[in-house]
């Protein structure tokens, strides 16, 4: 029993070592071994995406609270405008409007 246990233990240890070494065995000389982190631009996009999600969720919540009578008409009017602005700003920042295509000469002539 002791011998069998030792064999099983060795098999377990070898299997674990092979699994741990797998990334190095699979790519002994990788082109790129760098752990990709978020670039400042990506972090900024994440921040804006969160601001957009927060603003949209807050708008939804505000509409619901207004419909269920938790918030008065006056409070609703006062709160809804800045939230819409926040959401619109975030959406614009995430997906800036494409510039209008310049009309080519033929279009101008026509």
């Amino acid at each position, binding site marked *: 029993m002791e011998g069998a246990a030792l064999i099983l*233990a060795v098999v377990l240890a070898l299997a*674990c070592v092979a699994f741990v070494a797998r990334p190095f065995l699979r790519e002994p000389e990788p082109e790129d071994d760098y752990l990709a982190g978020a670039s400042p631009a990506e*972090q900024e996009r994440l921040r804006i995406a969160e601001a957009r999600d927060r603003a949209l969720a807050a708008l939804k919540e505000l509409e619901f609270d207004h419909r269920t009578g938790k*918030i008065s008409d*006056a*409070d609703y009017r006062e709160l809804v405008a800045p939230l819409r602005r926040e959401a619109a700003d975030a959406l614009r920042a995430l997906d800036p409007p494409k510039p209008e295509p310049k009309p080519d000469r033929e279009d101008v002539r026509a």
Partner: protein
Amino acid sequence: MPELGRAALVVAFGLVVYAAIAGGYAAFRGRRRLHESATNALFAALAAVGVAALVLLAALVRHDFSLVYVADHTSRELPLRYAISAFWGGQEGSLLLWLLVLLGLGSAAVALNRKLTSDVLPWTVPILAAIASFFALLLVFVASPFATATAPADGVGLNPSLQNPYMMAHPPLLYLGYVGLTVPFAFAMAALASERTDERWIVATRRWTLASWTFLGFAILLGAKWAYEEVGWGGWYAWDPVENAALMPWLVATAFLHSVMVQEKKNMLRVWNVVLVSGAFALSLFGTFLTRSGVISSIHSFTQSSIGAWFLGFIAIVVAASIALILVRLPVLRSPTRLESLVSREAAFLYNNLFLVALALTVLWGVVYPLVSEAVRGFAVTVGAPYYDFFAIAFGLPLVLLMGVGPLIAWRRASLRALGTSLLWPAAVALLTGSLLLLAGAGSSPAGLVGYTFAAFVLSAIVLEFTRGTRARRSLGDESWVSAFTGLVGRNRRRYGGYVVHAAIVLLLVGAVGIGGFSTTREAKLASGETMTIEGYALTYTGSSQTRGPNAVEQRARVNVVRDGEDLGSVSAGKNRYLAEQQTSNEVAIRTDWLRAQDLFVIVDRFYADGSVGFKVLVNPLVNLIWLAGLVFVLGSLITMWPDAREQRRLARHAAYAPA
């Protein structure tokens, strides 16, 4: 095969130490393959610990008494189900279960969040591995479940108190709760270490936190049910240090679950949230320390050991490292958003957090004060129930009130006029309930009367919320009430699941006040044929018997129960004398009357030589609402955690912005 178990633990220890060191280096230096290797080491450690767990389980089932652990916690006559539950009946097995659950949950969390938190994971892996290293170290060098000795003819057996069906489920669930809190802690610390303090670590760990909190809460209630039926003093919660050990992280995790919503909605309380996550995790370690170290006297503590100093050292490291990391990252954690109004949902969450944390700290002080007193003055001072009851009422009642008020206030700010309109109906129902109860004589317990009044307020506020929401949804389209209701809950699972959990807390409150404030006790020594009465019940002792159970001699006294002239049959209570364990346990009789919502609870204090029996009988009103609260609590949690397609789309959007 103890050698295989020992070897598997040594392999696991090597793997988690490697994952901690190599993973930390990979995160610090940005090495991709090394990070993948460290992650693989974490997964492989799970497999190795799984092998160790199987070896121990097989030894327990096969009564392999050459293992000291098996000999110390089982016997040949111990039923199979309890031989299996002996896995967590002792210290070494419990530590192995901790490590197994930690690696299982940690590996799953890492595997499932690869895309969403790819830049946080390089730090998450070494943090999880470092925590696992501590438990693996204990299991390899300090408290091995695979220590061997010459096998005795029979084992010592399992503590009779642990030979109870609830004890088969309570410890594993408790550990799922304790250990589960490691996941949000590891992600929070990794987010700080990697300076990625955006919302993703919260999104990634939300369900893990909720699940851990649910397991912990349900485990506390299962422990209470075990205490009610097995310990046999007639109560359900006694502010025992080990009970409190599970309550403290649960309270702090409850505060976190509320305050994290403020961060998601308003980008506020960012520092506070990482403090709460760290606090909940440190308290879960402290809970394990209290249960396992033997430093406190408790009916739930079944061990005396030398691992206390190790745990204290580890807790100190965790707390110091968390504080240091939070302080270093304060500049990026600070929120630009401020509280707009003291009358708003976020303000209500803030008040709720203050009361929850104050209650947790009060309980913590009650638990550690005897230890501090013993260390400083040389003798332990017991902190009794009156201390805890006082603070439970002082902080608990405002919390209950906030449970009703909070959902009725709008986010950002609410006018007092709109708030007054929202509160009108719940306040009217609460006042009416309070007045009726006062007229019915419930004023004998003022705190109970206030508790019931507040409970009525919260329940009516919840009903109002469901009603107004359904009506608002109906007004949007041509929907039936049922479809509007299911649509409302389905599209706002966190909110309405949360309300169901609030309803569970109200049920718990009503049950706890019922048994705590209005229970009746009577004691009598009865000879055969004699009768005692209590709250309309007449109990006649009709004789006793002694039988041989699978591993105990079971002595029972039969009592015939009559109420208002109606024969309700007989119940049997008594004692079990466990032969291998050389211990005796109380076996109470409980007769539940669902219509009257009360338990008749019969305890046999003593069998006298002359054949008479000393009985202690209680009538516990509303106690079953406490157990019902457990089921409602789980239902609410499940609604909250249920996968939501819109939430998945939101996660996918987040993942799209995360680095590849």
